[in-house]
Structures are given as structure tokens and as C-alpha cells.
């Protein structure tokens, strides 16, 4: 029951670019992100605001769909899902 996680831009300084998370299938996006944040120091500050919501400029996608348009943090993941996390990039 694993889920594949892909991260982009500066998040790659904090954790591997791509990894399989066992046991994440059947659980929520929230549970997955909590596990990742517990494992990788600094990640929580990059993804969550002070109130525990996903920062408004961070895009978290389940199989290419923004979880903000699904059930947000309560979106349930299934075995084999791909979760992609895109932090903002502002440069020009």
C-alpha cells in the first residue's frame, strides 16, 4: 500500500526528489505529509502555515490534480497514487 512522492525546487534540499512511502495508501494526504514532516527536518515550515493548513502558494497534487480541488488535506490516497509537491518559484 505504497504511495510515490515527488518534490520539486527547494524541497529537494530537504528530502529525496522521489520516494515510496509504505502504508500511505488508504490514509489521507494529511497523514502522509505528517509522516514526511516528521522524517525530514525543515519540511513542515515549507509546506504548512502556522494554522496547520497547506500554504496558499504550495501546490500538492494527487495524480496531477490539486488536492485543494479535492478534499484538501483530507483527500484519501490509494495504493500507487503519485503525490507531487510544488513549492512556489518566484524568480525572473
Amino acid at each position, binding site marked *: 500500500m505504497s504511495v510515490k512522492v515527488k518534490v*520539486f*525546487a*527547494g524541497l*529537494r534540499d530537504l528530502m529525496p*526528489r522521489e520516494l515510496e512511502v509504505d502504508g500511505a495508501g488508504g490514509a489521507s494526504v494529511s497523514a502522509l505529509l505528517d509522516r514526511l514532516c516528521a522524517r525530514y527536518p525543515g519540511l513542515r515550515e515549507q509546506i504548512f502555515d502556522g494554522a496547520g493548513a497547506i*500554504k*496558499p*502558494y504550495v*501546490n500538492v*497534487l494527487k495524480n*496531477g*490534480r*490539486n488536492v485543494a*480541488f479535492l478534499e484538501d488535506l483530507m483527500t484519501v490516497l490509494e495504493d500507487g497514487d503519485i503525490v*507531487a509537491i*510544488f*513549492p*512556489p*518559484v*518566484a*524568480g*525572473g
Partner: protein
Amino acid sequence: MPAPELNDYDRTRYDRQMRIRGFGEEGQRKLKGATAFVAGCGGLGSPIATYLATAGVGRLVIADMDVVDLSNLNRQILHWDDNVGEDKVKSAYEKLVRINPSITVEPFNGCIDGNNVLELTKGCDVIMDAMDNFETRYLLNRASLYHQIPMIYGSIWGLEGRVTTLVPGRTPCLECIFPKAPPKETFPVLGTTPGVIGTIQATEAIKVLLGIGSTLENRLLVYDGEYMEFHELKIAPNPECPACRVKQ
């Protein structure tokens, strides 16, 4: 206003692109009669302005408030070593009018702010986002909504870039996608990253001006140069967006 006629110089200069499906003499006349606002003459602004100029977009309004710094030169290809210390719009203007002497380039040397953004973009057909911060991008977004003209968004970080085409009434606006500005930072970047993203932005602008092909409307294209992958994110309007859901 009818599109301007082409002359012999134009027909020769643009011969290769006028052969492209959807271009032709009519398309080239549209480009000749078009105005693009290029917000920023840096990493993204350099390829954007260069390729819009070479394509024959008749009028470019270029804006920047900075002077050329030595650390800009790894990516800002309109500026050269002997331009360090000069105003970026002056440096960019001098190159662009030599790259294509048949177009008009209007430099604005200053800060794009809430007081001038609507006037600066008035009469433009497309806004090219080549800024390095979201505060100014939000102003450009408001101008795009106010004038009902498309804005081609681009941003970069390291070997990564993002690009999409925002069309009022047909796509989300910038504030729908990024409701809050990320913190400012001195970002890492390789020059090829704005090269890739800026040329995609210029391609999108030319397609929008000509009305050909399919643009990046409702799609955010992510370029991952580190692993050489492109990803596409579907984007949608935010029904409660404070920028585009209220009457401008």
C-alpha cells in the same frame, strides 16, 4: 485599427515564419500591429524581448527599475560586461533596436507600481510577466484583468521553471493560482532556465496574438531541467478570488 501593411523588408525578414501554418502575410501584419508590455529586462525579459523583437512584434514597451549588476550576466543575455552599472532598460533598448531596427521599442526606466501599471499597459495587446517578485506580478495581473488582455506568466528557480497563459474570462488569474506571495529570496538560477521559460512565454504570446494553436490556458507547465522532465498541472479559477471575481 487595421493591421499595418508589410513592406519588402518585412516579407524577406519574416519569410521563414510566414511559411508556418496560421502565420502568412495576414499573421505577420497582426504581429506588426501588436504591442507587448515586457515587465522586466532580466533573465526572463531578455529572451522574451529578443524573440518578440526578432518575430516582428511591432511595438515593445520594456520596463525595469534596476541597473545591470555583474551577477546578472550568467542569465540576462541582453546585458554584457560593458553594461555593468547602466540602467537595464537602456542596455536592453540599445540591443533590441539593433536586433530589429524596424520595430519600436519604448523603454520605461522605473518601478511598476499601483499608480502607473494601468497607464503603462494601456493599449498593449499582451503582458509578458518577466518579474522576479509576486508583488509586481499581482499588479500586472490586475492590469491584465482591467484591460482584458492576456498575461503570460513565467517564473524560475534553479533548473526549474513554471509558465502559463492567463486570459481574463477564460482561465484562472494569477491570484487564483497563487493567492499569497511567497517570501522573497535571492534565488539560484542557471541561465538556460529563463532561456527555456522565456522562449515558451514568447511562443505563447505570438500564438495568442495570432490566435493559432492551443495555448497553456488552464495548464501550468512545469519545467524540471535537473531531470529533464515537463509536468503539467491543471489549474482552475478560484470562485472567491478577490482579483478576478470582483468587477474591475
